[in-house]
């Protein structure tokens, strides 16, 4: 009996590991149709000589017959040289709040301290090849991310997983500096480590892009991609009578619009002394969401949904000494319209025309690191002003910022101590009554926090040396405005002083998204 390609995909997925039940349970209408074709083509060449014994079990004999087109006759002549690479980024901690409760992330701003961020790991498997005949390098990047909670903590044999990368990139297309990629990709530039924040460019789309790196240390790249977050802003489904006089209902998409995002980035680097350098980056994004129609709250009555557009312009100035990881990056970014809401957002606070027109975000950020002998200081700050499209001020209109510093000292090459201090402040466009009987005042929230972080750094000295084991103690003060951000009876509403006492670890190696991407 003929088998569909999806059948084999399921078979392969189910045979890989029992820890991926979600894949095995994926229905035939899986949104990953590319998988089955790619698997048979890659397997024969990619698996080293020692592995073939394992292959037959994963790839049934029926595969070649089912997908003859996927294994062209020319394949044997293009045998590449390469191999698999495994990489990972991860952070995990166990912590309490000093009162017997679990520690929680307590930032009041969008991008706060990394110390109390929740557990997260990326498992990246890459296939990297050099195709001698054509002189092209390729890499297939697949990154599986797992978020909190962790099974050993909540005893649920389950996990929050997501595919964060799934793309193929080919380099050396015609000339050495040209590369192209297609697929699903975390597409981003420099981060501010302390804040776990990519201030200028951080896009997550299903798309494609090209990049050119000139010998003059100029890099230009463009990309375009799509996304359709699962929300009524993008998609509305409704039941309709089945066609052809059949029983029951069929589900139809009344609104199904995907967000187009295009980005362009140009970077120029300059030498600064023997090892140091400067870089200037210009960056822009365009966003568009087509107009559509959806059924209103009155069944059978349709309403138009306007077209949405938006843009981002921004820039970055970076400098580094070339000695260890000493560097400084300054960012400025302005987003308007649809782009002000971020690529995953379902915009709210719309304008009178039910669009995002008029929404905007202005951001300034700075991040850096200075290292000397046994000492290092990391610093970070940003201020951000966001206004939704609604002309009047409301709770989602926000100005916020944070300043943070983390000095560190190494007592031994593998043992050190960090101190972290920060102040985060937020003001929202709403008048609130903080205490019963008080007059309403603008909501201003503030949270200063200090922490001490003794650590073990097996990879040696350096702010970005990983892996790292650490103990963390932080104490923060939540003022009345900050407490008001939480609902009644939430402990964060009740108590002013917040502690985080725990142990944790962080690593990165071989990851296409972390490590080595600081500059």
């Amino acid at each position, binding site marked *: 009996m003929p088998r569909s390609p999806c059948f084999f995909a399921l078979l392969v997925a189910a045979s890989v590991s029992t820890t991926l039940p979600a894949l095995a349970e994926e229905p035939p209408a899986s949104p990953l149709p590319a998988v089955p074709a790619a698997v048979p083509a890659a397997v024969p060449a990619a698996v080293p000589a020692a592995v073939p014994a394992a292959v037959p079990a994963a790839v049934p004999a029926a595969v070649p017959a089912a997908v003859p087109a996927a294994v062209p006759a020319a394949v044997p002549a293009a045998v590449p040289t390469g191999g698999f690479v495994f990489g990972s980024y991860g952070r995990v901690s166990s912590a309490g709040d000093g009162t017997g409760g679990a520690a929680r992330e307590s930032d009041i701003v969008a991008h706060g301290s990394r110390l109390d961020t929740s557990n997260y790991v990326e498992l990246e498997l890459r296939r990297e090849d050099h195709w001698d005949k054509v002189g092209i390098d390729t890499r297939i990047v697949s990154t599986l991310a797992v978020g909190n909670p962790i099974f050993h903590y909540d005893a649920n044999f389950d996990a929050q997983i997501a595919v964060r990368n799934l793309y193929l990139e080919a380099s050396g297309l015609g000339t050495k500096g040209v590369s192209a990629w297609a697929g699903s990709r975390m597409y981003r530039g420099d981060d501010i480590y302390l804040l776990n924040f990519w201030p200028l460019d951080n896009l997550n789309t299903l798309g494609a892009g090209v990049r050119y790196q000139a010998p003059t240390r100029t890099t230009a790249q463009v990309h375009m991609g799509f996304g359709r977050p699962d929300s009524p802003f993008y998609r509305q489904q409704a039941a309709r009578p089945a066609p052809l006089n059949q029983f029951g209902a069929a589900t139809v998409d009344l609104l199904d619009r995907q967000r187009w995002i295009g980005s362009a980035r140009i970077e120029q680097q300059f030498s600064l002394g023997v090892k140091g350098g400067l870089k200037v980056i210009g960056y822009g994004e365009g966003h568009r969401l087509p107009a559509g129609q959806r059924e*209103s*709250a*009155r*069944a059978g*009555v349709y309403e138009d949904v306007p077209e949405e557009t938006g843009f981002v312009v921004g820039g970055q100035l970076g400098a580094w000494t070339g000695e260890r990881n000493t560097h400084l990056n300054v960012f400025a970014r302005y987003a308007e319209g649809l782009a002000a809401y971020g690529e995953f957002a379902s915009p*709210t*606070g*719309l304008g*009178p025309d*039910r669009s995002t027109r008029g929404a905007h975000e*202005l951001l*300034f950020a700075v991040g850096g690191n200075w290292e000397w002998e046994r000492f290092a200081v990391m610093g970070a700050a940003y*201020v951000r*002003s966001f206004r*939704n499209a*609604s*002309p*009047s*001020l*409301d*709770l*989602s*209109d926000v*100005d*916020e*910022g*944070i*300043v943070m510093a983390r000095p560190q000292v190494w007592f031994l090459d593998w043992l050190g101590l960090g101190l972290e201090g920060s*102040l985060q*402040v937020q*003001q929202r*466009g*709403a*008048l609130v*009554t903080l205490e*019963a*009987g008080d*007059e*309403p005042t*603008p909501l201003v929230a*503030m949270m*200063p926090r200090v922490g001490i972080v003794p650590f073990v750094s097996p990879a040696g000295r350096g702010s970005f040396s990983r892996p790292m084991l650490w103990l963390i103690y932080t*104490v923060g*003060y939540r*003022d009345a405005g900050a407490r008001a951000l939480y609902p009644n009876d939430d402990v964060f509403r009740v108590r*002013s*002083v917040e502690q985080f006492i725990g142990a944790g670890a962080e690593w990165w190696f071989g990851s296409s998204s972390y490590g080595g991407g600081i500059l």
Partner: protein
Amino acid sequence: MRVSEVLRTCLRGPVASVVFAALTSGCMSFDGLDEPVTLATHVADWRDQVIYQVLVDRFANGDTSNDYNIAPAAPARWHGGDWAGLESKLDYLDELGITSIWISPVYRNVDTDAEVDGYHGYWPQDFTAPNPHFGDVMALRSLVKEAHRRGISIIIDVVTNHIGQLFYYDINLNGHADDQVRGSGEQSPVVHINEYDPDFDPRGIQSETSLGEAGPAPIIFNHEPVSNHMPPEPAVLQRAEMYNRRGRTVNFDDPDQLLHGDFPGGLKDLDTTRCEVKQAMVDSYARWVELTDVDGFRIDTIKHVDREFWRFFAQKVRQRLAAKGKTNFFMFGEAFDGRPELVGAYTKSELPSQDQLARENECVSDGRQITGDQLDGVFHFPQYFQAIRDVFRDGQSTDRIEKLWSERTQHYGLEPNELGTGLAPVRTLVNFIDNHDVPRFLFQGDKAGLGIALLFIMTEEGLPCVYYGTEQEYRGGNDPANREDMQLSGFETTGGTFQLVQTLTRLRKQHVALRRGDQAVVWASSRTGDEEDAGVFAYERAGGDAGDSYALVVINANPNHTASPAYNGAPMKVSQPGGTVLVDVLGNKTAPVGTKYVVGSGGTVTIALPPKTGALLVPEAQK
């Protein structure tokens, strides 16, 4: 010193200042958020106002972010209207010619109860918080500010009689809100007596066990945040003694039940004789004025509230606002009743007995003793029944209007309230054709009848009040069918009734006599048959504060034939001297705008009007 205090002291200073400076520099600012509201008097003479009543939820949706649980297809559910939406339609209201907007209550309500929503605003839960379905304080401020910029005043609806369905009587003492504890339908139409809405008991709702009564039933507040069945705010209202706790009113003719029973639907009756309740209401509602600079209160269900409450509330609100720069604040009440002596009683300055007054003064904490002053005006419900319904809709005789008007000075306050509007309440009755509590005129009436009713309320003494959608010829029946979505009209400005209202507001503005003149009936008829004057009603507006301005209104409410203000050879006589040329500035299908009528010797005016039409005559020199 505690850790928190150390942190506060050390870090709130210079470091915070740097961050704040960064946040508030340049375009990173909140325009208007920190701007204090300065109270001011925005209305010079309330008689000049034309009120437009808006159910905010039904008017316009200007901010979709507050569309929580809306279901526009269901008349009894939230539809998404909000303050931003209303603000966006001020051009439309400007074009219509209205000068004052009465909006739904602004505080937070029970969201939904028994599958019906609190979209109307009469189920208060938190008197101190804005209704999040309508927006936040800034949105309300913005609406008021923009309205004021256009010369439009804002009146907010207030409820003092009750809270929403926020507690139940634990009659069987099981700590659970039972859907049925007793009830056979013998005492009331309510067959199933539940613990939310038990029948009235003058002793207070009693608990019962299998052995019989067990004393007053405790009340238990709900804690259901999803539907906002949460304990009321301000917190003083969370005490049981703040409520009369006598159960549902089943006989509105019983004064005890009228004043102390729960309003049908489980709306729990506040004990408005208590000082804490009086003060809580003054504080709550005066605060809304202080926060937004609104210009008046429309007050709900006044006849269900003890009279002493109105003395305290009205006087203390006026005093508090006047001290902050706001005078001429207009407070008018709703007594859904056809008896003018009852309705008018809330506008009279009357002192109670000395013992009662002494007791009332125990609530006074500012040293200013209670006087007899009450409200500045009331809805003219007696006129709704006797003129709008009986005459303009049903074609009954017009002399009942004359009688009603002639008794006004007996029933309504004749002296201005101290720190009030400066006008005697008898001059500031609020005249209306329909509202959210009664079927729309067109539900049973016709368009011609609506036209003369509009002419009537726009030209008689008092303040006209137009219910939203009237100008779009909405015709919904009883609540909630009479609370249609305004957006369904497309806010058209070309319809005949829209243009009639527009014309009438323009004429009212143009002719001061229609606003401030004294009023005198010059023709009324007891006849409803084939007689020549059957259905005719005519009155003059002149004198008073109108200077030389003069207007004569003649209405033929007869649905069947042309009629004239004359009978058996005796024509209508007006106060204008013989030879005065009067011009019809309104016109009708047989006499266009500009038709002239000459006052005869002895002040006679001869005019014939087709069925259900009217004329508005002014001296030619004033047209």
